[in-house]
């Protein structure tokens, strides 16, 4: 069984850029775990095409597979969104602090006005 790699930001974003893969992810988020057949059921595309989409999601680290007898199951990885969350919080931290510094710098350069 292939062990999927830990998710990376660019891979996650690229994988989610496709509407079919987004739908698959939404279904998995709602259902928890699904057999590959159940994943494919609502889509009017070949099982092969679904397989390819699942492969992309797996490589991106968004989903993981489990095999039980002849059945193959997929589910979201627990850490699927971690890179996105980490990245988002990093951006927020940076800009919040940067605007603090901007405010301080601006205040230091602006002549103080007397309060009326």
């Amino acid at each position, binding site marked *: 069984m292939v062990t999927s790699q830990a998710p990376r930001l*660019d891979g996650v*974003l690229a994988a989610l850029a496709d509407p079919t893969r987004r739908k698959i992810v939404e279904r998995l988020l709602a259902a928890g775990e699904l057999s590959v057949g159940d994943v494919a059921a609502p889509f009017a595309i070949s099982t092969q095409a679904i397989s390819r989409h699942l492969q992309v999601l797996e490589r991106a680290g968004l989903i993981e597979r489990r095999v039980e007898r002849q059945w193959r199951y997929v589910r979201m990885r627990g850490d699927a969104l971690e890179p996105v969350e980490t990245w*988002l919080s990093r951006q927020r931290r940076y800009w919040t602090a*940067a605007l603090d510094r901007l405010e301080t*710098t*601006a205040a230091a350069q602006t002549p103080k006005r007397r309060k009326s």
Partner: protein
Amino acid sequence: MNEDATLRLERLIPMEPEPLFALWTDPVQLVKWWAPDGYEASVATLDARPAGRWRVVMRKRDGSEVATSGVYRIVDRPRRLCFTWAWESAGGVRGHETEVTVAFEAAPGGTRLVLIQQRFDNKQARDGHGAGWSAAFDRLAACPRMKFGSLR
């Protein structure tokens, strides 16, 4: 546009729009506030006009560096500034690119500054991925972690 926003920050800055705009576009002024504490910023490139490039290197005392860089899209002095944005790692690898828009609006006591950072660059939005991707992501992000945890 707000639908795609990653981040929206708003501040009242005690400075008129014109000099405040210069704090963003004048290399001498920008380095005063751009880098986090413990880092020193230096402007490698700053060509504040549409399609002009910018790159700011931030150096720690131990010599390690990170940089931010991008391309200006809108330079509407002193009202609006829009540029692409990405972190560069030590190896010079550019991370995921986003778009930052800063609006400057004169307000009592200074300038109301609104910063919006979007997850996507315009190219993705133009390709039609933007809105759908964003909506899906918001649903994903809204999903409590418990949900993942309960699968374990």
